[in-house]
């Protein structure tokens, strides 16, 4: 009963069950963060003065240690998965908002002006021009958020065993089975690398329009003059 994959029964999950749980606790918050970040970033792009305070506020949230965050939330959401996922969603949001804002702002001025001049309304322009061109930056943000989320889930082990694979760390101490800790670390690392690879693949599929090799949009057309104010209307 001392095998690498023999999970103590008090965790109530098999190894693969823990993986599924871990992915859910890590990725749902990233998805939620993305859904919140998209409109928030668009507001920041549209109303420039909103961006610095939003950036400041999210940075402060990011500075709160996850453990403190969990403890505060326990009063409201108890020792549940939700208590783990809310802080992770907030952290994702903090990473994604600047990524999306920078991505959307990187759209060349001429491209925006041309879209406006061709009769794109603001919504169509956002969905069909700004967002697709910002896709590489958004995926880059998602990679950071996903990796950090997968590692942070394990802290949930401290609040009522909601840490999925992280619970193995506690179990390793409790039962003096260090191989369980090794299992937890390796599995989490593998999950993080796998998710990252999938995101890289996603970006490749989303951006056939980027120069091969560099994988960076080459602004073949860069403005030499500042654009008149109307360009971004």
């Amino acid at each position: 009963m001392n095998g690498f994959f023999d999970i103590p029964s008090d965790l109530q999950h098999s190894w693969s069950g823990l993986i599924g749980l871990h992915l859910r606790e890590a990725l749902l918050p990233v998805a939620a963060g993305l859904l919140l970040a998209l409109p928030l970033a668009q507001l920041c792009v549209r109303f420039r003065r909103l961006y610095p305070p939003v950036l400041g506020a999210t940075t402060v949230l990011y500075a709160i240690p996850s453990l403190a965050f969990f403890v505060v939330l326990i009063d409201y959401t108890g020792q549940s998965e939700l208590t783990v996922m809310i802080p992770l969603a907030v952290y994702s949001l903090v990473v994604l908002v600047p990524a999306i804002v920078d991505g959307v702002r990187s759209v060349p001025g001429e491209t925006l002006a041309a879209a406006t001049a061709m009769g794109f309304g603001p919504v169509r322009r956002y969905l069909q021009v700004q967002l697709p061109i910002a896709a590489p930056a958004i995926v880059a943000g998602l990679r950071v958020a996903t990796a950090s989320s997968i590692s942070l889930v394990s802290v949930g082990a401290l609040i009522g065993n909601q840490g999925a694979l992280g619970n193995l760390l506690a179990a390793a101490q409790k039962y003096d089975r260090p191989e369980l800790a090794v299992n937890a670390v390796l599995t989490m690392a593998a999950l993080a690398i796998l998710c990252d690879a999938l995101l890289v693949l996603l970006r490749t599929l989303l951006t056939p329009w980027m120069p091969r090799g560099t994988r960076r949009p080459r602004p073949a057309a860069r403005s030499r003059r500042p654009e008149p104010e109307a360009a971004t209307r």
Partner: protein
Amino acid sequence: MIRIDSVTKRYPDGTVAVDRLSLDVPDRSITVLVGPSGCGKTTTLRMINRMVEPTEGTILLDGEDIRRRPVTDLRRSMGYVIQNAGLFPHRTIVDNIATVPRMLGWGRQRARKRAAELMERVGLDTSLAERYPYQLSGGQQQRVGVARALAADPPVLLMDEPFSAVDPVVRKGLQDELLRIQEELGKTIVFVTHDIDEAVKLGTMVAVLREGGRLAQYASPAELLSAPADGFVEDFLGADRGIRRLSFLSSAALELTTDAVVPADASAERIAASGARYLLVTDPDGRPLGWAEPGELIAGDIRTDRLLPHGRPFVPGADSLRVALDCAVLSPTGWAVAVDAGGRVTGVVSQQAIGEAIRAAHARGRTDQAGVAP
């Protein structure tokens, strides 16, 4: 017709970009707005498709205030070409060109077929259709920009310094292409540039704007060059406007002489009889071979390899006086060689004779202007 009626654009900080500008843009012609940076030319252009709203004044399109139409409808009825093309980097060339037709509800197949037609019209190989913009050169991207603007066959084309960011050789090609397309399609084009040479080359009418968005002069290129309204326009036209103006004068009226033209097999009498200081030797078909002094020519045995080069010839009527003068200046003898469309010599003309023609043309121009003075 686009009528810009005492339009002013004042920004909240008090800057005046355009100041009581009035301008009638005639149909089916190229109207160029030209001036130094900060003269409001781009602002003026962007007021026509309401990317900038005027503070005062109105703009009428075929008699109707442009504010009475939904703004996206208005914009879709006007092609827009911008500096550096402003292509959508994430869409293929064919999808870039098909953008407006697709927005207007055309089917995918029809829009793509139209895009392919336009690629040919602007001189792009249709094999580029599925490429992305980054795979094209700057000049090719700009052609795509023009094709995209033409896609829905809008009556009006707005062009904002479209050729400023490409090198001079490519720019000349694009300019010639635009003139050719305009000849075929007859759009109402408003063209913004800071390059007076481009303005003079492309414009049917040229509006020169000065800093602060005021109109300095609105005239045809020939009139602009011959009668600049004031010192600002004269400065802006540059030092060689006299020479450039010759581009608008025909070389048809030049008096050619054939006395100094001899065939390679000319007799001694023919050579002696010419009396000219230099003789132009032609081959049996009448094509120019080169210049020689009469004394160097031996009848029946003219050494064509010893001749002075004849330089570039001009075609009277087809070429301007500027070209004829250039040929004479570049010729080692000071005489320009005139040929017909087939390249056969029709005569030669001296710098002095071209000078006479220029003076005569100027004199005619003055009386013409006096006759039609507004």
